[in-house]
């Protein structure tokens, strides 16, 4: 009887999800209520988790709870800490959820709400969650080894080297592009710039408190820090209203780019406890709070989605970034559906803390479903504003013709009515000088979030406070990724440099620290600067480059996972990782080819470089702009070369893997699996972690 009831409930969930999906896919009438998005997403996630992840856990991976995990065998209270599954879920989610699932869907909203929402849900269920889950499992079975180590052992030495290079490439491009998102969010905004700048002294204060006053008392320090951050969000308004102070904090894009580079360098070179770690604590609490508030706000306000399901820009002429739905929607959404970077977390801290193999399903698959849901919420927030406003905020001036009436006329001409006065009033309401041409996704997401938040609490009176809260939330945790990434990049540079010159590799040697920090900051700083001065807005070049490198890393992870499944003799279920891998290879190769060779200068790097060179040759560029144009040409060629190298890396890895697979399948070589030997667990079946009272 109970079984029948369970089946009926799950059938109900599936039918509800199908109905909600049908509504958002086929409804072409009145604006759609956002509740349909939430229902469709949640029902799909529940069904995917209940059925598909259970299938992967039981049939493909055959999780074994009698086997001791690394946290039991090596329990050292430092890296290997047996952790309750709910706590570890929180840890893992906080680590994987960055700005990607917020910014990617916001940018992809230029195609309309439908393609992005479909990919967010389906991509997560069949690709992103599977990648995170399988890599977590593989790492647990190998004492918590990293993706690079697993690639080296299970695929080939070269495979491991490619994985390492891919990580450095993705890190460099990621840091540049998220830096650009922050620049575009803070540009000409004294309120937002002041708020974010103040988080630095607050973090320093917390760092000193946690180091010398109450070592390690993170909770009480974070509560104080969050209170101070909320205070400076409000105080930012006073700064913006003061003529003398507002000009101090009104910075150009280039000035902000150099300030961010200086911050990245300081965070990498200073002791980690002083600046980086306390900022991370602040960011974690504010991130959790803001995401929860956004979810509650969407459910409470149930906003209307005003963006059409498909816009005219599916033809590749989009103002936010150029390129057709295929492959650019999949490249742009990035982390909300699948992110290669997650495989570094799944083969980093999490496998060393997991209690039982079966928890990998909840943590690996489940946390990625939640990240996908964050992406769906970002899509709702972006699509809940009138499309005209969305395009006005996200389009660069070179596309819409600057700001004001001319730009409003261009956007209205696309079929999305907009009056210049509307933008002026909106900027005034949110306390900004202007909202025109703020590409990057953060300002439009902040407007969407602020409208949802202010409809819940405070009304229009608090719109400006909510807007700056949302900007602070986005910028704070983007900078947390930026400073932590710069530091990790510094270690990678020191590791590589240490092979050539030994002292350089010593992580405690100050000249080495300063030099390696400068090198990694110069690497991502160059791309950031290039994005800031790019007349097409920077996002048009850098975000696809980031998407390609991130999906490339995901393809690397899935190649490793497929090879391991093959060695485990799970040929029958190999499609579980092989199909998403093939899909990723197809989209990264197509996007790479188009970004390098497409004849449209807005898509193809080389076409843009050639068009600029032709303009110089024809004498169309004024003499004072020739040097700048030559720099632009060089940058486009550099971007083409970087894209080519990324594509070549994945091709080499695939050839390596195919050779390996051929020798396994043809039985030329006995498959050698580098799993740790089986050790039976000594924990009782209901053990839930030492800190939870189960000693």
């Amino acid at each position, binding site marked *: 009887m109970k079984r029948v009831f369970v089946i009926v409930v799950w059938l109900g969930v599936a039918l509800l999800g199908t109905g909600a999906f049908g509504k958002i896919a086929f409804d072409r009438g009145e604006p759609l209520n956002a509740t349909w998005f939430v229902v469709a997403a949640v029902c799909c996630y529940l069904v995917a988790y209940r059925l598909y992840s259970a299938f992967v856990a039981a049939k493909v991976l055959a999780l074994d709870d009698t086997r001791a995990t690394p946290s039991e065998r090596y*329990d050292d209270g430092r890296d290997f800490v047996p952790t309750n599954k709910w706590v570890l879920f929180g840890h893992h989610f906080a680590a994987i959820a960055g700005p990607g699932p917020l910014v990617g869907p916001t940018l992809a909203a230029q195609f309309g709400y439908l393609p992005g929402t479909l990919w967010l849900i389906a991509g997560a269920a069949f690709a992103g969650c599977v990648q995170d889950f399988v890599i977590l499992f593989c790492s647990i079975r190998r004492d918590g080894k990293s993706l690079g180590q697993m690639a080296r052992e299970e695929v080939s030495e070269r495979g491991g080297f490619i994985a390492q290079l891919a990580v450095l490439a993705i890190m460099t491009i990621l840091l540049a592009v998220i830096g650009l998102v922050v620049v575009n969010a803070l540009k000409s905004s004294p309120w937002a710039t002041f708020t974010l700048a103040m988080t630095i002294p607050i973090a320093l204060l917390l760092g000193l408190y946690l180091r010398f006053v109450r*070592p390690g008392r993170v909770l009480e320090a*974070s509560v104080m820090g969050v209170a101070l951050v909320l205070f400076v969000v409000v105080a930012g308004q006073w700064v913006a209203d003061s003529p003398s102070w507002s000009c101090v904090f009104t910075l150009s894009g280039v000035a902000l780019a150099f300030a961010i580079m200086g911050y990245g360098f300081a965070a990498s070179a200073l002791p980690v406890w002083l600046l980086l770690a306390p900022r991370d604590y602040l960011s974690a609490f504010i991130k959790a709070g803001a995401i929860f508030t956004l979810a509650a706000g969407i459910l409470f306000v149930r906003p209307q989605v005003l963006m059409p399901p498909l816009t005219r820009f599916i033809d590749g002429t989009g103002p936010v970034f150029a390129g057709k739905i295929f492959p650019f929607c999949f490249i742009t959404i990035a982390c909300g559906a699948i992110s290669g970077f997650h495989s570094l977390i799944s083969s980093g801290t999490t496998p060393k803390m997991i209690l039982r193999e079966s928890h990998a399903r909840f943590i690996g698959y489940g946390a990625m479903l939640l990240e996908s849901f964050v992406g769906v919420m970002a899509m709702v927030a972006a699509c809940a504003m009138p499309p005209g406003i969305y395009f006005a905020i996200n389009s660069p001036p070179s596309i819409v013709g600057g700001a004001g009436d001319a730009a409003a006329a261009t956007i209205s001409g696309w079929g999305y009515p907009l009056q210049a006065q509307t933008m002026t009033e909106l900027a005034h309401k949110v306390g900004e000088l202007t909202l025109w041409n703020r590409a990057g996704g953060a300002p439009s997401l902040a407007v969407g979030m602020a409208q949802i938040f202010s409809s819940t609490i405070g009304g229009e009176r608090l719109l400006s406070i909510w807007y700056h809260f949302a900007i602070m939330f986005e910028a704070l945790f983007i900078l947390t990724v930026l400073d932590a*990434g710069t530091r990790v990049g510094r270690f990678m540079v020191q590791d590589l440099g240490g092979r050539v010159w030994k002292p350089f590799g010593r*992580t405690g040697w100050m000249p080495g620290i300063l030099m390696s920090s400068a090198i990694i900051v110069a690497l991502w700083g160059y791309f950031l600067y290039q994005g800031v001065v790019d007349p097409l807005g920077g996002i048009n070049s850098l975000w696809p480059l980031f998407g390609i490198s991130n999906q490339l890393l995901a393809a690397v992870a899935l190649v490793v996972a497929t090879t391991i499944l093959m060695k485990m003799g799970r040929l029958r279920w190999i499609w579980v990782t092989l199909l998403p891998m093939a899909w990723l290879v197809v989209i990264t190769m197509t996007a790479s080819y188009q970004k390098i060779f497409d004849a449209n200068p807005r898509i193809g790097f080389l076409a843009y470089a050639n068009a600029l060179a032709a303009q110089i040759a024809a004498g169309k560029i004024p003499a004072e702009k020739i040097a700048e144009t030559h720099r632009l040409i060089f940058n486009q060629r550099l971007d083409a070369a970087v894209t080519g190298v990324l594509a070549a890396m994945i091709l080499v890895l695939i050839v390596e893997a195919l050779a390996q697979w051929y020798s396994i399948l043809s039985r030329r070589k006995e498959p050698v699996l580098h799993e740790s030997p089986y050790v039976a667990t000594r924990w009782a079946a209901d053990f839930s972690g030492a800190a939870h009272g189960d000693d």
Partner: protein
Amino acid sequence: MRNAAKTTSRFLRRFWRGLREWCGDAAYESYLRSKDTPSGSGRPLTPAEFYVEQLNRRYSRPNRCC
């Protein structure tokens, strides 16, 4: 009524423990409880030593994603 109060209090206690574990507040306690507690020098690290050592280790590998 008493049962409800007990359940609530147990839930709140667990939530509090989980929150402390999640944010790292209880990391030193977990370290003291672990089987490898004494360091190479034969004594466990002090809270300040443990805090700095733990942060240096955590932030030397990718721990925040895009």
